[in-house]
């Protein structure tokens, strides 16, 4: 489903702030893979997702989604393949627009915007049903401006939007990091449900090792812009936080450093 081949990306090349963010990254995803991505500060987790979504062009390497080489495509041209949920709950939605208008924008992901009416009556009924499945009472607030929703509600809505039109790959970039623990757990549960219900292929960056172990069928650990550890299936299920930390020290030869991880554990 996805092949990232020898991806390189250096920020601020040639300056004192030069940062090699991705350093020959290779990743292959099978259809239906739900991969949790962990790693220390600046390991390149979010950078990998940004490279995939085309926020900027990569310096070297190729990205192939479902047989299509998308390396040269710019961000909006890659949208047909990708559903994205961001860390910041503000990033995934248009605050001054209604819940239903946001959904209508997402339903047309990757399609040409015409002069047809932006939202139809039939869609409205579908959105109402879909929103009801979130169990947040949003189905009765379809015309509420999204800016009035809480962070958790916005993330749940963004998740729904990202999967409204089935993406080849769902990208979750620390999408629960900005939420309180209870809401985070709820949104994570919802992600799990949507991914399994639709049989989606997904990449989920998280700073929470427990979540990474608990969710998905595969786990990859990143360091210095490369993948240093990749487990799936039974082996993944048997992981513990301690064994993961040990693994990291073993492979990278350094202590695992992630500010947020220390705070969250």
């Amino acid at each position, binding site marked *: 489903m996805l092949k990232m081949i020898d991806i390189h990306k250096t920020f601020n090349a040639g300056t004192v702030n030069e940062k090699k963010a991705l350093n020959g990254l290779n990743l292959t995803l099978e259809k239906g893979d739900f991969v949790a991505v962990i790693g220390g500060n600046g390991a390149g987790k979010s950078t990998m997702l940004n490279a995939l*979504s085309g926020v900027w062009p990569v310096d070297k390497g190729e990205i192939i989604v479902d047989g299509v080489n998308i390396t040269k495509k710019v*961000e*909006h*041209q890659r*949208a*047909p393949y*990708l559903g*994205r949920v*961001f860390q910041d709950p*503000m*990033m*995934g*939605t*248009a*605050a*001054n*627009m209604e819940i239903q*208008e*946001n959904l*209508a*924008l*997402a339903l*047309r*992901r*990757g*399609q040409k*915007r*015409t*002069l*047809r*009416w*932006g*939202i139809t009556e039939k869609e409205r009924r579908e959105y109402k049903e879909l929103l009801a499945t979130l169990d947040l009472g949003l189905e009765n607030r379809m015309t509420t401006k999204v800016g009035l929703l809480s962070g958790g509600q916005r993330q749940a809505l963004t998740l729904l939007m990202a999967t409204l039109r089935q993406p080849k790959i769902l990208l979750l970039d620390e999408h629960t990091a900005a939420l309180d623990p209870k809401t985070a757990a709820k949104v994570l549960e919802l992600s799990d449900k949507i991914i399994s219900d639709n049989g989606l292929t997904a990449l989920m960056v998280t700073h929470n090792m427990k979540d990474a172990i608990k969710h998905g069928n595969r786990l990859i650990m990143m360091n210095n812009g490369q993948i240093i550890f990749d487990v799936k299936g039974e082996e993944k299920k048997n992981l513990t936080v301690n064994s993961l930390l040990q693994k990291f020290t073993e492979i990278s030869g350094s202590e695992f450093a992630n500010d947020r991880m220390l705070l969250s554990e």
Partner: protein
Amino acid sequence: MVNIILGAIALGLLWGIMTLGVHLTYRILDVADLTVEGTITTGGAIAAIMITSGINPWLSCLAALGAGLIGGLVTALLHTKLKIPALLSGILTMTACYSINLRIMGKANIPLPSTGSNKVETVFTPVHELMKKLVGEYDDSASAAWFYDIICSKNFSAMLVGILVIIVISVITYWFFGTELGCAIRATGNNQKMVRAQGISTTLMIIICLMLSNGLVALSGAFIAQYQAYADIQMGIGSIVIGLASLIIGEVLIGTKTFKRNLVALAVGAVVYRIIIALVMAAGMAANDLKLFTAITVTLCLSLPLIKDKLNKIVSKRNGEAAVTAEKEG
């Protein structure tokens, strides 16, 4: 006095088209676009030069709109393709427009007289003629002469045209921003990252919105030139501030709860602004002080939320202190 107010309403409605254009960029796209100071004059210049050459005034208006679209396109390309900040892009196009406008007009001022030997036909002329004809048929009661005078006045027919045009444009605008494309443009003003994630080119949306905005502004310029009976190279100076003043007055008076309401607010705001100006002028303010007056009004309006906030804090602090004292005493 009635005639002054009527004139203010007519002019306000025509400026309302411009206010709508400013709304597209300032509110919907969240960009302060200064191109309008140039394109409003371009609109007036093109309409004037075409009308004096005997071309149909409505066709001239359409040409002015086209010129505005191009002006907006230039700013949009400077901003999106050459990555020049939006404000500076607007200033660059506005400056360039000054020379272009002079080229179009060939001189600094083109009169569009409605009487005399070189009188021209504007969009208002047929309506004016019609009104005179209608009144002429019933003109047998001297007691209501003042009423007939109003109906026959130029300002009245200008007002009728203004009402018609602003309604048509508002309806089209309402429809457009309900379409898929319009929704995408609105979202672009909210959150560009999200819009790109939905597969929409934010570049294209910015280009379309800036073009439409300046198209409307130039169209407004074409009507204004015909109303005031001349196009002048200076007519655009300060227009962005007038547009903002009208926009804010409308928002305060009518509100922005729904898009329909917001559209009405724009027209009402532009009219109220013109009435205020007409009144302060009638009260004796020098025309040269108008721009200062407008700038101060807009400054006050823009800082209103901040002032309100500060006042609330002072009030609540006082109340808090009073409560504490009351508690101690109690």
